[in-house]
């Protein structure tokens, strides 16, 4: 694999050159003011990189995952009109395909991998694929772990490159960029290139990656969890006694599903404004009772415990049985933001303890 050596100025040159023909997004500091308590809170989230700013990479994961670039909230699937004189009234037509190219810079391995996992169910979804085709990912491997992250326990790696076009690793005084895909090579050319890394630098890269890996392998009780879960009986997991206790504390707010990089469930609704019909899709959540409510009034998951169980069973059993990997990248956002402190790592441990 091609590996290039850069310093910060080189990276800034790349970002500036990419911004000439693409939208460049990166984790950047933002703030929001709460009027009720007149306090300003600052956080890191995805925003357009411009004015010589540099991605904020030392403050943990951005608040939101990158799924909004692939599953926009909302996304217009079709348009039509209700106008009587329009011969195509009520005929749904796709909006013009978005062709603007984008680069996401500073994507961590967990978030980059989420795109590959979501691609499994969305393989034949033209909207998702169109967004994927126009969005390049320049990842940054991890050097530190967040308190809440656990990528290695669910099949990922803090230095993984899955889903990335370019993988950048920061060594103390320099950056090494590994070019993973053809699109990554294209970005390197557009950015203005960089010298190849020396043999010494490449061995430093390898050493650094090994160090990070050993730092992350502290959750050894969750090693081989995928194979263990696949071997488990669906009904034994489904009927495990801990679900009701877990559901007791859950308030079904749906925060976990909205912030989860691999929660991809959606709803489709029609909107009519001034004679224009828009059929849109947007995030839905299996935490909500309306998610499964039928027109007859019957609700297959009318109870909270059924909904809580469905979310975790989907991630750790249904999805892997169908597609292979867990539908979880271990980013830990759900742990960080859950208002009642539900910890998905504990749920995984509970599931693995089921006989």
């Amino acid at each position, binding site marked *: 694999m091609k590996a290039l050596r850069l310093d910060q100025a080189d990276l800034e040159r790349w970002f500036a050159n990419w911004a000439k023909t693409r939208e460049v997004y990166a984790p950047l500091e933002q703030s929001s003011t709460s009027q009720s308590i007149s306090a300003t809170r600052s956080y890191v989230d995805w925003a357009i990189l411009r004015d010589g700013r540099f991605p904020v990479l030392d403050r943990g994961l951005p608040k939101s995952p990158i799924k909004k670039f692939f599953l926009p909230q909302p996304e217009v699937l*079709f348009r039509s009109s209700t106008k009587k004189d329009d011969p195509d009234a009520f005929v749904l037509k796709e909006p013009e395909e978005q062709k603007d190219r984008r680069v996401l810079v500073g994507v961590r391995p967990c978030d980059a991998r989420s795109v590959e996992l979501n691609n499994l169910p969305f393989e034949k979804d033209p909207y998702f694929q169109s967004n994927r085709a126009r969005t390049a990912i320049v990842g940054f491997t991890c050097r530190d772990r967040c308190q809440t992250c656990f990528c290695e326990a669910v099949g990922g790696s803090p230095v993984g490159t899955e889903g990335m076009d370019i993988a950048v690793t920061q060594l103390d005084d320099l950056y090494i960029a590994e070019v993973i895909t053809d699109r990554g090579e294209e970005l390197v050319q557009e950015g203005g290139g960089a010298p190849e890394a020396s043999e010494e630098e490449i061995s430093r890269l390898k050493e650094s990656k090994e160090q990070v890996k050993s730092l992350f392998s502290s959750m050894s009780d969750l090693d081989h969890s995928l194979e263990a879960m696949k071997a488990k009986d669906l009904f034994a997991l489904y009927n495990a006694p801990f679900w009701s206790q877990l559901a007791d504390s859950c308030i079904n707010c749906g925060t976990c599903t909205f912030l989860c990089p691999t929660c991809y469930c959606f709803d489709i609704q029609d909107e009519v404004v001034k004679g224009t019909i828009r059929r849109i899709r947007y995030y839905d959540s299996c935490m909500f009772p309306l998610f499964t409510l039928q027109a007859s009034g019957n609700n297959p998951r009318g109870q909270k415990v059924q909904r809580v169980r469905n979310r975790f069973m989907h991630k750790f059993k249904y999805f892997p049985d169908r597609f292979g990997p867990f539908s979880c990248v271990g980013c830990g956002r759900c742990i960080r933001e859950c208002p009642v402190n539900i910890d998905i790592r504990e749920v995984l441990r509970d599931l693995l303890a089921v006989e």
Partner: protein
Amino acid sequence: MTSLLANPYRPYPARIDDIVIETEDGNLKTFRLVLEDEDTRARWSHIPGQFAMLSLAGVGEAPIGIASSPTEKGFLLFTVFRAGVVTTALHQMDVGDRIGVRGPLGNGFPVDGDLKGKNIVIIAGGFAFTTLRATLLYMLANRGDYGKITVIYGARTPGLLLYRDELKAWAERDDLDTYITIDREAPGWDGLVGFVPTVAGQVAPSPENAAALICGPPIMIKFTMPPLEKIGWTNDQVYLSLENRMKCGLGICGHCNVGPVYVCKDGPVFTRAQLQSLPTEF
């Protein structure tokens, strides 16, 4: 979008060609739809038991079983119960109005697979007869492919039976046995009286080289199984069709899952044996 992949979310435009009010309460209407594009109309094919999304631009979509047989060419039939937002809006539409059809979706009954060469018992209750009508017509059109065919169909009152003209015509055929029943005595009704499970127990179709296709309210299915099991029917011989809330119809959006399977993509038809290996989230 089309430059990349065919868009499975795009409905085919269709016109309402005819509307039949099926039941005396007016809550069930059969819509005859003609796809507007000639090529699409010619290329359309489906398997009995499959469904389609009926798409009302500006209102939404609802999954409805296809009531016409693939052997009926040039149009599609959907018998729709007025229940939610989309079906209520559909019930207010007129002949000539434009709607959309997205499908066919789901697996359907294995009419050209496991059901071939078998004696077939169709058991239906209420308005769940729609995809079974498609199945029955398909089997009658390919009569030689199946053994004895028995139809047991019941409704609360004579006025709630679907496809009444066809029921009469089927009763006169000598290549199938029909048992049409209503729940209670009613003026002018000289046919069978009794619940579907009771009639199924009396008719007692042999499980020998046979398959049963059962559609109806859950309570009917529950009570129909014991009399069949008593005479030797097993769960892998019994085919059921599920309904869950659906949005995409493609096994993606997450609404209709029953444990690891999606009713829209892996179903709606499952054997009872398959359902017993799943959580009862339907």
